[in-house]
């Protein structure tokens, strides 16, 4: 039997069948050097496990027990809203165009219902145009002008992170407060418009001052962002430069 390092590691990790393990053990027993090597690998593994023993034996902190017992489990989130939306022609188109809304975000509870109520009317932040959702009004202005570092108190919209998407466009995450609740989303600059790439009405999580903008995002938006982003989010200088040149794709 030809021994290799990988075979010995598989042996140490219990990956071999009983028959294979027996044959390896025989070979190893014949050779002191091999035996020492295998023992060292076993010791390494045992030592790693021993090092973490205190945390395995410690009682879990109260806040974790609370998270397990008290985090609300939503009722099935995906089915009900869809029936209502599908009546709208452009929404049917939207739902057939997976590129517009990440599938994961959809499953995680994107709710467009109350946004659309006034999108078809006047003065909403978001409207449909040629089968796409675009921003308008104060949301558009905030996306175009506001830097993440600017003081946003008094504004309905908060800008989160700015980044470059795989499509090479500038995109920004936002939260905008509405009478019905806060909506979070991602908008990407597309032909001088801010096109909505993801939208969620799931409440953003409370954020401490130590956390970055991204950590307060609803999971659906963070998932969408992670699927879109290339490299790291823009830093303050890059964000300013992008704004000053009108968020034109590079």
């Amino acid at each position, binding site marked *: 039997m030809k021994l290799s390092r990988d075979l010995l590691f598989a042996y140490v990790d219990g990956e071999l069948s009983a028959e294979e393990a027996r044959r390896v053990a025989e070979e190893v027993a014949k050779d002191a050097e091999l035996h020492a*090597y295998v023992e060292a690998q076993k010791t390494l593994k045992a030592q790693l496990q021993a090092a973490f023993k205190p945390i395995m034996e410690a009682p879990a902190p109260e806040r974790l027990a609370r998270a397990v017992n008290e*985090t609300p489990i939503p009722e099935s989130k995906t089915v009900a809203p869809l029936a209502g939306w599908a009546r709208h022609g452009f929404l049917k188109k939207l739902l057939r165009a997976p590129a517009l809304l990440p599938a994961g975000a959809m499953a995680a509870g994107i709710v467009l219902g109350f946004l659309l109520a006034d999108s078809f009317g006047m003065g909403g932040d978001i409207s449909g145009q040629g089968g796409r959702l675009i921003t308008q009004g104060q949301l558009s202005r905030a996306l175009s002008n506001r830097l993440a570092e600017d003081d946003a108190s008094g504004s309905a919209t908060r800008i989160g992170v700015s980044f470059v998407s795989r499509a090479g466009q500038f995109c920004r995450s936002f939260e905008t407060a509405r009478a019905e609740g806060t909506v979070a989303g991602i908008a990407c600059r597309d032909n001088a418009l801010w096109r909505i790439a993801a939208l969620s009405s799931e409440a953003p999580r409370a954020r401490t001052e130590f956390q970055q903008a991204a950590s307060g995002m609803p999971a659906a938006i963070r998932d969408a962002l992670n699927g879109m982003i290339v490299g790291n989010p823009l830093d303050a200088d890059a964000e300013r430069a992008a704004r000053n040149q009108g968020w034109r794709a590079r």
Partner: protein
Amino acid sequence: MDAAHAELRSQMMALLPRLRRFALALTGRTAEADDLVQDTVERALRNLDRFVPDTRMDSWLFRIAQNLWIDTLRARKVRRHTRNDLSEAEQLPYDGARAAESHLLLSQTLTALGALPEDQRDVVALVLIDGLSYREAASILEVPIGTVTSRLARARDALALRVFGGTQVPETLQ
């Protein structure tokens, strides 16, 4: 429905120690590890409809934790090597002579893990520390098994170097 939820919560509670250990191996700090565990638990429960009943909850939670940790690293632009300090010593809630001993071993181990590239640390945490099979680790990390074994081999060499000052690879294996 409620009974089913209660059962899932109790399964999750039983997995907390392993989840904390995994998170500590990834993050290197207890406070950060517990933040990660809390985020993981909350996200899992909010998305419980995505958990396939009768599949392994441990793998599902590890995958969520690992993805969240990648998000955190990306969002904070954390670079691995900034982590390798020993300030962990002040954060751990252990005291007493025996505890201090195991505590030192943990500090040293976290330092050694911290020196590994992120992708190797994931594999070490799952296979060497948690004892999962190569197949389970590959499924959690969504990589081929060959990737798990090659990362593991590199990580073993690096850890052996730190822990034992290196191991002599027998001639028959070279």
